[in-house]
């Protein structure tokens, strides 16, 4: 089969676009102090930050799935006044500066916050400046990606399969778990990956709501930022680690992420 030739008017901006992403990454690789790499990577702070990053971002994805899929279902299937406004509100974190999100979280769940003071006085639960706070901040910023992706998947699926399942005697729960979820699996998967990727890179909301305590709330992005102020070259290595993890996951999942299409 002959390959289609890319027209020059497409090729030039496309090449510039690609270079725009690649050149900074090359810079990172070229300028990294490779002789210090082992030391920087095995430093206890790095290992801790990396572990925390993975735990928190995976937890945020899990929370996103548990809460976000039902919410996406409501958006896609239920008709009620104010639905569009509600959807806009729950996807606001996608456009909001993450720092603003962090401040909002503080005002809601901080010790003196709307819910936070009640949680503190009734249950003795404090969320800000804890690992749970990191998960909350990451979920707040990342879950909208999952909601929107899953909602799109629900809207584009052929609902007649659900009717076929009902006609076969399947309860609504069975229809949802055995037919709806498997049929939107590509969207579910893409949404979860997007959510996880966004959570892994989260910085602003996390540092505002959860602070920057090594071992408790200091995730990789925070560690990179901190190290940048004291030891610039070590921060390059940490950045590269974050980059590699993301790249491995994205490349590894690419064909599934793009759906079965």
């Amino acid at each position, binding site marked *: 089969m002959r390959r289609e030739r890319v027209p020059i008017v497409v090729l030039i901006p496309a090449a510039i676009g690609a270079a725009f992403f690649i050149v900074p990454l090359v810079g990172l690789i070229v300028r990294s102090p490779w002789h210090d790499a082992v030391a920087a990577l095995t430093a206890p702070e790095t290992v801790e930050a990396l572990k925390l990053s993975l735990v928190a971002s995976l937890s945020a994805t899990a929370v996103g799935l548990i809460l976000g899929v039902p919410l996406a279902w409501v958006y896609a299937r239920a008709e009620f006044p104010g639905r569009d406004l509600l959807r806009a509100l729950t996807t606001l974190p996608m456009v909001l500066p993450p720092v603003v999100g962090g401040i909002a979280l503080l005002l809601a769940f901080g010790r003196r916050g709307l819910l936070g003071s009640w949680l503190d006085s009734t249950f003795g639960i404090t969320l800000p400046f804890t690992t749970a706070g990191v998960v909350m901040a990451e979920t707040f910023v990342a879950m909208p990606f999952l909601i929107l992706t899953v909602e799109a998947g629900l809207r584009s699926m052929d609902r007649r*399969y659900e009717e076929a399942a009902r006609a076969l005697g*399947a309860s609504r729960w069975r229809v949802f778990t055995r037919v709806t979820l498997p049929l939107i699996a590509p969207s579910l998967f893409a949404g979860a990956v997007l959510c996880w990727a966004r959570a892994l890179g989260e910085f602003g909301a996390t540092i505002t709501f959860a602070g920057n305590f090594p071992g408790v709330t200091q995730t990789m992005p925070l560690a990179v930022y901190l190290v940048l102020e004291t030891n610039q070259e070590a921060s390059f290595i940490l950045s590269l680690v974050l980059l590699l993890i993301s790249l491995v996951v994205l490349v590894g999942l690419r064909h599934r992420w793009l759906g079965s299409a």
Partner: protein
Amino acid sequence: MSLEASVRLTQGPLDLDMELAIGEDEVVALLGPNGAGKTTLLRAVAGLVPFNSGHVSLDGHVLEDAATGRYVPTERRPIGFVFQDYLLFPHLNVLDNVAFGLRSRGMSRGAATEKAVQWLDRVGLKSYAGAKPAELSGGQRQRVALARALAPDPRLLLLDEPLAALDVTTRADVRRDLKRHLASFQGIRLVVTHDPLEAVALADRLIVMEKGHLVQTGTPAEVTERPRSQYVADLVGVNLLRGEADHGSVRIPGGPVVATAGAESGEVFAMIHPRAVALHHTRPEGSPRNVWRGRASNIELMGNRVRVRIDAEVPLVAEVTPSAVKELDLVEGGEVWLSFKATDVGVYPA
């Protein structure tokens, strides 16, 4: 033991108002053109479409009644539904598709698998148990869909255009198998189709509907011998006129008076078989009481016959031999005389 339904609903341009009463000693086909509301009616019986007024009851149990608000959800109705493009679950293999209804109704995995395998064997697809629907041919999918619908032993079997998704070559085979399965099914059977051949082949009784309303019901022979709508007349290929009879003549509103042999009066249908319509170059002399002048608007070869549509006072189709067309020097748009005998006009009350 029967299905009784009365459904009235409005959905977009469709204004549906139908009553059904079906016993288990007959296979019934709902026949009508696209957009007649056949599928909507079927879905309403299944509980998939809400209706404004009416009721559905099966074997005396009320499944739905708009007046009392009673509604048994689809999943709790004892139905089997074969959908138009089968809707086999693409993520499940053939066996799991057939077992789905059994598992949904609470059967254990082992028992469901065993019964599903039996059903696959009955439709001749046992060796395809592990295949995904996408790997099957159209005819095989149809058989899986049928096995899936029948496996949970429904009381009511609903089939929506069960052969429409198939190509012509496989359709005849699958239709024969389907007829066999319909015959052996113990329960009420309702098939929706827009294909008269399919309806006649599968059903003991036809319910013809158009624009959401009943047009005609009866055995295939009754319906084809005495069409009561232009739709059925076109399907059967006969000329159908409607008018006011007055002892030996039928006056067509805005058209001619047709001479007939009967003594009917009142609103009637007048059916004229195209073979009974003769064509002439000039005004014919002789016994035929009905002689009209018109223009040939469409000449079509059908097998060894030629169907000529003539725009006279009312349009009429004549069926003649190719040699007659040649002798008459018939061309589209050419003037022609037609005649038919009063005794060739079938008249029956509208």
